[in-house]
């Protein structure tokens, strides 16, 4: 373990990167809890965690706006790392090697792998869908503006985007747990040389060529 600590030499995420990520994550958790409470009767008991049914309904859209704002900041910070490149498609073709820990067979990739990039765009699409549909179904302030057909469609779209989002985040969290060192990256901000070289060779190459350690 002490070895790991000594090896944590590359800064992958600045303090602000981390804070915006965790703020987004916390608001996501609250939204997932409140949203699921209103989505499925068997999960309605989750509304107690936010102070009851009325409070759940009141807070959900406000937290939603907050999450969108925080996520937008993350998007501005990271979008240029998430553009798909030819090597990403190859990585995807070899998804079997990815899932079975045969990373040595994979092509060298940059700061983010294709899975992470796809996650990025999926989240972006879901967030926009959730924001727009959420505003339409926000009964307290905005629903009166829209025709009933739009409201019904938005309710369905909101649920669908939320489902995709939650499922994606489950995958995202699992991946963070599975690839050891990932959580450390987002908690402490640093990764080891070995982690960087193994999982994001091209990014590692760039880092070690520059005089300072920052990316």
């Amino acid at each position: 373990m002490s070895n790991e600590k000594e090896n944590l030499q590359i800064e992958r995420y600045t303090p602000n990167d981390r804070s915006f990520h965790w703020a987004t994550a916390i608001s996501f958790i609250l939204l997932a809890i409140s949203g699921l409470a209103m989505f499925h009767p068997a999960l309605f008991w989750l509304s107690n965690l936010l102070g009851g049914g009325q409070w759940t309904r009141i807070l959900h859209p406000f937290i939603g706006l907050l999450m969108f704002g925080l996520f937008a900041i993350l998007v501005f910070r990271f979008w240029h790392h998430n553009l798909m490149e030819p090597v990403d498609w190859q990585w995807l073709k070899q998804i079997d090697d990815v899932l079975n820990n045969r990373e040595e067979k994979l092509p060298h990739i940059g700061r983010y792998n294709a899975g992470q990039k796809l996650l990025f765009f999926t989240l972006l699409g879901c967030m926009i869908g959730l924001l727009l549909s959420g505003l339409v179904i926000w009964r307290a302030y905005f629903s009166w503006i829209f025709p009933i057909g739009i409201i019904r469609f938005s309710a369905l779209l909101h649920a669908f985007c939320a489902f995709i989002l939650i499922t994606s985040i489950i995958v995202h969290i699992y991946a963070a747990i599975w690839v050891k060192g990932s959580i450390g990256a987002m908690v402490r901000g640093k990764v080891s040389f070995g982690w960087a070289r193994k999982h994001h060779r091209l990014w590692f190459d760039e880092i070690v060529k520059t005089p300072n350690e920052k990316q």
Partner: protein
Amino acid sequence: MSLQSLDIKRLSATTVEPPSAREPITGTVAKLIDVTKCIGCKACQTACMEWNDLRDEVGENHGTYDNPRDMSEHSWTVMRFSEYENPNGNLEWLIRKDGCMHCEDPGCLKACPSPGAIVQYTNGIVDFHEENCIGCGYCVSGCPFDVPRISKKDNRAYKCTLCSDRVAVGQEPACVKSCPTGAIVFGTKEDMKQHAAERIIDLKSRGFDQAGLYDPAGVGGTHVMYVLHHADNPSLYHGLPNKPRISPMIGVWKGLAKPLAVASMAAAALIGFFHYTRIGPNEVSEEEEREAIEEAQASKEAHHE
């Protein structure tokens, strides 16, 4: 609100069967509104406010006889006035009492996420239990008739209760009692359909060939029905839906989507768990660390030169 728990047929946001041992022998109740006898006097609106202790705002005139202009948390029924020039060139002043239709398959109940906020009794009455209402407005999307109204003050949904409290003690709803022409009558659904049939025979004998009963099958029939002069075109009566049904979008959202989504999310988590316990974590070995550090140092030296 005052029928006891054994008289509940359906509850909102409840996945298990409510107590269903007993069913009323006389079947369900229904309120029949004979639009052909209505004179638009608003006694029903007034009686509803009196019985339910509701007082809406004293608003303004918007250029019609409709007052208040729309239903609200304080006006659970309003008269809608439409002037219709029929194909014979004669003017008909069509006046319809608007309010909850008490559907047999209530869209509001289907859409509601809060357990027990919307109740359907075995007698057919669909009631809101506002103490359980979270104010989300899903009921508004679920309703094919645009009935529920959310209060800005307490953020709960309100609508006609079919005077469930009066019916529970054997009385007719307040609007029924107050109607001076007998346009609104109340009894078992069977009796009301019989009464309507007699009215329709009479109307047809007087030139209203398309007179009929509005009891839309698309929502399983309703416990508030209309006798219309023009049953072939209900939308003449201030936009009464011709073929109302619960929107398929609501049907999917509150139907298939629920178990499918939850199952999928649970599956995703379980797949991860099983993946981890089969494949194991993805770790960087000590050797890989050493290689990486060596490469980094070599690269740094190369760079400095």
